[in-house]
């Protein structure tokens, strides 16, 4: 492909943006790519249908009475495939074609293929019985696919829907940046309103604004289509009027330096804190429970962020510290703990818990710290599992209760003022918030300290860090211990909140979920990690905690897995990347850019010498 297009003649030191090439014809497609994309879409569609997602999620209505979450999961694939197939890889010196009929036609064809997957599935469902291995091979699925009609209807309708969605996806490329932003904002507004429904309803009740939510939401869930339209229109107009002012403002803040930067940051933090302190007062049990869960995971994620994000140690057994924190808090405070039950007040117990977890961190960290990164990951995973197995075993059941766990753990008493227990999620949230504030402050200060810089140096190149006089072993061990202590806070609060601890609350998958949260949000970035927990734990839910989309509980781990793969492939630096980390990850590309720049300068220097082709990729 590169060879056919002549490289643009560079005019200055920086490669100039080539003028857009004319649009391509509707039939001038890269058919192989299109068919491949369509086939992948079809497989994805069949997978989603057979995973039972559409049937289970059909109950959650998004826009009443038009769209349910179940159908949305089926529509999103042809849309995405149709949008993606029109994507052009931008290469330096290669002009980008303007979007036109080509994109719409390609998207439609691709979407039709993807939708065809469901047509095929409908035919198969009608003619074969594969219920034996595939548990969701049910008449219910067939009915859902055919909208209650005959099979032929399903075949036709999914081809049509696929084509339409694909074409819409392709057509998204035709819109100018401003219109596209408006469209995306509209979709986000309606989708967000639907997803946040339980939260909004709960808050509205607390603020006595039921009249508003009654209008917005239908009686049995979902946005009314009339108010949905209104919401879309309002947000679209806002977005069009805003013209990206928000982004400008953000860029402006990012550019600030010195005293004004500190002041703006302080104001932002103050505003967020105020909202977080005031909001729970109006919220009901559900919202507070959700916020408390998110907070617990923010604590865990901040701890793992220090280990993985700052020091670059992939600790897969992080749940061990959570477990040790929970169990030691339980043993120290509960009267029912089998062997020793000093029944300490929670705050006193917390100090002991921190010491114990710190020691466990040292004990686990010391043997693994010299290992190569990947061995270390597996060995920490082993430690995480060993700790759980030990809590579970009969051997130490005299101490930790074995599979029965420890129950009737009292709530966390704070100086005799209040007693924080799971029955009152609001108090739990405030407690979690306080600890989050501590953890954020500690992480923030550490990141900018000598130790934090040493961690980052070790992460980026251990040998060089050692040559610079950093004691890599001690520094990494400290990261382990600090991470462990932060995890133990979460554990101590968890045991007081739930009131009981069982070995099976500490499966390895908890570690993996925390890892996904950290990676999704942005490794090494405090704001990113918090945003990651809020989005993932808040919307999808934690390993055992339900999120806003409670219907997703069966599928959330699947989604976490897919998300982890996708993040690593598409955006390893996370949603809100840390500057340094993303520089490290895209080292190669940056080197390539620099090289290209050098080439261009050489060309200029030679003054019309033989133009060099763009580097083959």
């Amino acid at each position: 492909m590169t060879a056919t297009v002549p490289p643009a003649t560079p005019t200055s030191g920086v490669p100039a943006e080539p003028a857009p090439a004319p649009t391509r014809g509707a039939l001038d497609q890269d058919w192989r790519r299109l068919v491949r994309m369509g086939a992948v879409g079809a497989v994805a569609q069949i997978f989603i249908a057979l995973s039972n997602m559409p049937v289970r999620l059909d109950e959650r209505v998004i826009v009443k009475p038009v769209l349910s979450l179940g159908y949305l999961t089926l529509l999103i694939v042809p849309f995405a495939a149709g949008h993606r197939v029109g994507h052009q890889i931008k290469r330096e010196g290669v002009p980008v074609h303007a979007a036109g009929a080509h994109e719409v036609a390609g998207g439609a064809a691709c979407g039709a293929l993807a939708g065809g997957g469901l047509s095929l599935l409908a035919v198969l469902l009608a003619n074969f019985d594969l219920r034996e291995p595939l548990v969701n091979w049910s008449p219910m699925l067939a009915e859902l696919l055919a909208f209650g009609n005959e099979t032929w209807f399903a075949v036709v309708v999914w081809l049509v829907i696929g084509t339409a969605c694909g074409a819409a996806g392709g057509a998204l490329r035709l819109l100018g940046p401003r219109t596209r932003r408006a469209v995306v904002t509209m979709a986000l507004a309606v989708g967000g309103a639907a997803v946040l429904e339980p939260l909004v309803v709960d808050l509205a009740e607390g603020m006595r604004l039921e009249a508003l939510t009654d209008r917005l939401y239908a009686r049995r869930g979902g946005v009314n289509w009339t108010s949905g339209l209104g919401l879309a229109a309002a947000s679209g107009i806002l977005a069009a009027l805003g013209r990206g002012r928000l982004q400008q403002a953000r860029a402006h803040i990012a550019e600030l330096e010195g005293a004004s930067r500190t002041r703006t940051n302080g104001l932002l933090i103050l505003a967020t804190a105020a909202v977080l302190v005031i909001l729970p007062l109006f919220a009901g049990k559900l919202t507070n429970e959700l916020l408390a869960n998110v907070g617990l995971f923010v604590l865990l994620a901040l701890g793992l962020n220090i280990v993985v994000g700052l020091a670059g140690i992939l600790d897969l057994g992080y749940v061990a510290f959570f477990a040790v924190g929970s169990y030691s808090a339980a043993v120290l405070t509960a009267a029912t703990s089998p062997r020793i039950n000093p029944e300490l007040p929670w705050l006193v117990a917390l100090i002991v818990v921190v010491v114990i977890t710190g020691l466990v961190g040292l004990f686990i960290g010391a043997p693994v710290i010299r290992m190569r990164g990947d061995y270390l990951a597996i060995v920490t995973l082993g430690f995480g599992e060993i700790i759980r197995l030990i809590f579970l075993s009969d051997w130490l059941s005299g101490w930790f209760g074995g599979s029965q766990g420890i129950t009737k753990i009292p709530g966390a008493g704070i100086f005799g003022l209040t007693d924080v227990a799971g029955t009152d999620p609001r108090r739990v949230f405030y407690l979690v918030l306080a600890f989050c504030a501590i953890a954020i402050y500690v992480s923030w200060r550490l990141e900018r300290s000598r130790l934090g810089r040493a961690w980052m140096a070790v992460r980026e190149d251990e040998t060089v860090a050692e040559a610079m006089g950093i004691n890599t072993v001690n520094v990494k061990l400290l990261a382990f211990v600090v991470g462990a202590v932060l995890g133990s806070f979460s554990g101590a609060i968890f045991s007081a909140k739930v009131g009981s601890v069982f070995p099976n609350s500490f499966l390895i998958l908890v570690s993996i979920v925390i890892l996904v949260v950290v990676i999704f949000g942005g490794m090494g970035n405090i704001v990113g990690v918090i945003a990651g927990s809020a989005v993932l734990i808040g919307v999808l839910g934690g390993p055992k905690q339900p999120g806003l989309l409670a219907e997703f509980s069966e599928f959330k781990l699947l989604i976490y897995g897919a998300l982890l793969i996708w993040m690593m492939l598409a955006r390893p630096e996370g949603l809100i990347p840390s500057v340094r980390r993303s520089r490290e990850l895209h080292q190669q590309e940056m080197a390539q850019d620099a090289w290209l720049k050098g080439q261009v300068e050489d060309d200029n220097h030679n003054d019309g010498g033989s133009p060099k082709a763009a580097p083959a990729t």
Partner: protein
Amino acid sequence: MIRRRRARGGAPRTGVDWFLTFLRVAILTVVAVGILAFIAQEIDTDNPFARWANPDATGLTGAQFRGLIISGVAQGSMYGLIALGYSMVYGVLGFINFAHGEVFMVGAMTGMITSNKLADAGLWESNFIGSLVFIVIVSMIVCTLVAVIMERVAYRPLRGSPRLIPLITSIGVSFFIQNASIVLLGPAAKAYPDVPDWVKDKHTFLQIEGSRILVVVVAAVSMGVLWYLVEHTKGGKAMRAVAEDAEIAALMGINVNRTIVKVFAVGGAMAGLAGILWGILFRSVIHSTGFLPGIKAFSAAVVGGIGHLGGAMAGGLSIGVAESVGPLLILEPLGVSGVSQLRDAVAFAVLIGVLLLRPAGIFGERLPAEDRT
């Protein structure tokens, strides 16, 4: 690893070094005391040493001990087959394909589905060996496909990225496959159809179940075939060359991408075979089947020296025997109760112990050139 330790020779010993030394000594002491206590019990359960270690010691009979070793060998040869995949991929790409255990699980699942279908058709009882061969072939094909698709989708785009990135991706792949199995096939454990008596029953020869003999024989044969493939065919030579140095291999005219795909395919096929062996041994499979054997097989690969084919098999056997005999040989004589629950913990402990005592494994690692320098 060896090189690094030698380089540290002159460096001052830090607290961590002392701690590690202490830990090594402690591990060896516990193992030694446990074995001594076991021997003391075997000689006479009433002698004071055995009584001191475990007041209600019973010791093991010879038949029990032999049974444990044999089941350890059977499971170990299965671990060895899985370990081959870890070892080969590590040799070529230099990262741990965490999702390899899941490929094994897919193999066991495929075997379960096909064998149940065959049993419905009545072929399973009438022609057991034929059906077995059939499910082995189906499972190997499916697993090869899974492994190759995995490589294409998740790992190839990440070639050349920082080392932990493909590892994290493989964790994601593992998580995804496991949960995909839950949503597609349901969360319950699923059973293989009943096997003929000669597989189930103990034979007069050494009192071993037929299934164990079958597993060991199949594993040995496939190991031999694989050894021939890698050491004596052109494709195998290409694999070894890529493992040695991918860039130079490419310069020599070897298609590196295709060779890597082949490595994944071979590893996948071996995992598929191991999945069927799991089915024969345990006759039940669940979505989490792949996790623990996967970790243990990885330990086996490390024990044998990663990148080393024979080492993987030897490591598998040692891990299998250790986890089957270890708890009763070392922990029970020391008075730890409920040892069978700690089997998996013992397997992990073996991994940690090996990495502490001899990180390069028994036969030494064969790492890609870039890791050695």
